[in-house]
């Protein structure tokens, strides 16, 4: 069975969607979803679907498994800036930093992470270069 690494972060559909919030008081866009706004302390954030495409703002690759991590190495980690003015920490589908460049168009994907002990395929959100 395919399961999400955590419920409420994204919709595992075709196409997939990152789930965020927009604060009704200050307009800030939040990820993950939150019922309170860290920017203005209001309780007005409303659920919104975030853009599937953005641009690459920073990137690297992790070469050794960090504590608690259950997937393969190396893997890419980066920051993608979405058009609504939010920068999101994300896995990248690309793990060779030399192939990526600043501002490169990126697109959301749902990627396999590992098989857990109960026979589930655990998946998470990631961004990868937009296919030409």
């Amino acid at each position, binding site marked *: 069975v395919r399961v999400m690494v955590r419920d409420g972060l994204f919709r595992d559909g075709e196409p997939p969607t990152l789930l965020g919030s927009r604060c009704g008081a200050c307009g800030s866009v939040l990820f993950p979803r939150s019922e309170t706004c860290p920017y203005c302390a209001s309780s007005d954030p409303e659920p919104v679907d975030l853009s599937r495409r953005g641009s690459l703002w920073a990137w690297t690759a992790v070469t050794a498994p960090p504590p608690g*991590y259950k997937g393969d190495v190396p893997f890419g980690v980066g920051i993608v800036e979405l058009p609504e*003015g939010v920068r999101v920490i994300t896995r990248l589908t690309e793990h060779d930093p030399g192939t990526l460049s600043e501002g490169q168009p990126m697109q959301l994907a749902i990627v396999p992470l590992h098989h857990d002990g109960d026979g589930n395929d655990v998946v998470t959100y990631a961004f990868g270069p937009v296919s030409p």
Partner: protein
Amino acid sequence: MTGVAVAGVGMHPFGRFDGVSTTDMGAGAVRAALREAGVERGGFQAAFCGTAYGGVATGHKVLSRLGMTGMPIVDVEAGCASGGAALMLAAGAIRAGQYDTVLVFGTEKMPKGIIRSSFFEPWQEEAGLAATPAFFALRAQRLGRASGVTKDHLARVVVKNRRQGAQNPDAMFQKETTVEEVLASRVVCEPLHLFMLCSPNEGAAAVVLRRADRAAGAVPVTLAAAVLRSHVPGPVLSESTPLSGLADDGVPAPTTLAATAAYEEASLGAPDLDVVECQDTDAARELQSYEELGLVEPGGAAALFDSGATALGGRLPVNPSGGLLSKGEPLGASALGQVVELVRQLRGECGPRQVDGAKTALSHTVGRGANAGVIVLTR
């Protein structure tokens, strides 16, 4: 309101010490600081202990060992700034007239390898989004773009600090290195190689604070400011390690908030500093600290480093102790380790790594929370 003086300092070296407990190291540092201050049992009215991994009642265990309990003992956790937080609380209590003499110490035995932090949710670790060096690497890449910092700069920061640490008997690494050796060490997270990252380790440091009007000593050192700040949300690469941030580069970093308040509290500015110990968890973090502390204008870190100003013998030596890159980082003790070094610098006790004529010194730690601690010492 009374001033606060440093009456004594003590240290257990930073490194790896199998068979030596958190309590053993803390007791050693505390005993040394009390001896220097001429303070005996019953001579201090409160104790604050910085620790992140020490567990319940770490401070009590240290003072029980020494037979010095009965007063309030408070453990303080503020990530990499735990010692700075403890010092802030102690100084505030003295200024307010609550106590005359307060013991501040930090002691820590870090797990080996990449620091595992209970800060992150399990899913974040599972998904690979809790890798501390990856956040350091992303910051390093952004700094590279904003300030012209190259991989060669990062290697040379390591060479500088290890050269200075080679003169420090309390450091974990007392051996110089070369740019070639740094760049030959394995890539942990591009652009950071293994030698560009500090080692989590073990150690302890202690400081005795006293009302300035009760202090004695040949070269009195004054605690001119002890400030702790947390983050303001916005920067995605803040030490608060959020999962998202705003596309807005104008939000001040916690280090800048703490430094600004500390300069005001001490009635001086960055140009008045003679020596700095700053957070160099990785080589890029030292350069970023130059800008966030106001040692140079934003974008100027690489140029300041290239000028030689921040090396021993320069205008403003940074990390004469060798920094965390040489000493390693025992979280609860690292800030107080900086303070011990700076007090000794101000007293002129540092031998081959002495900053000549140093009168004004700044200590800086920043990390998880976010917590940023800035301490100013003068003589």
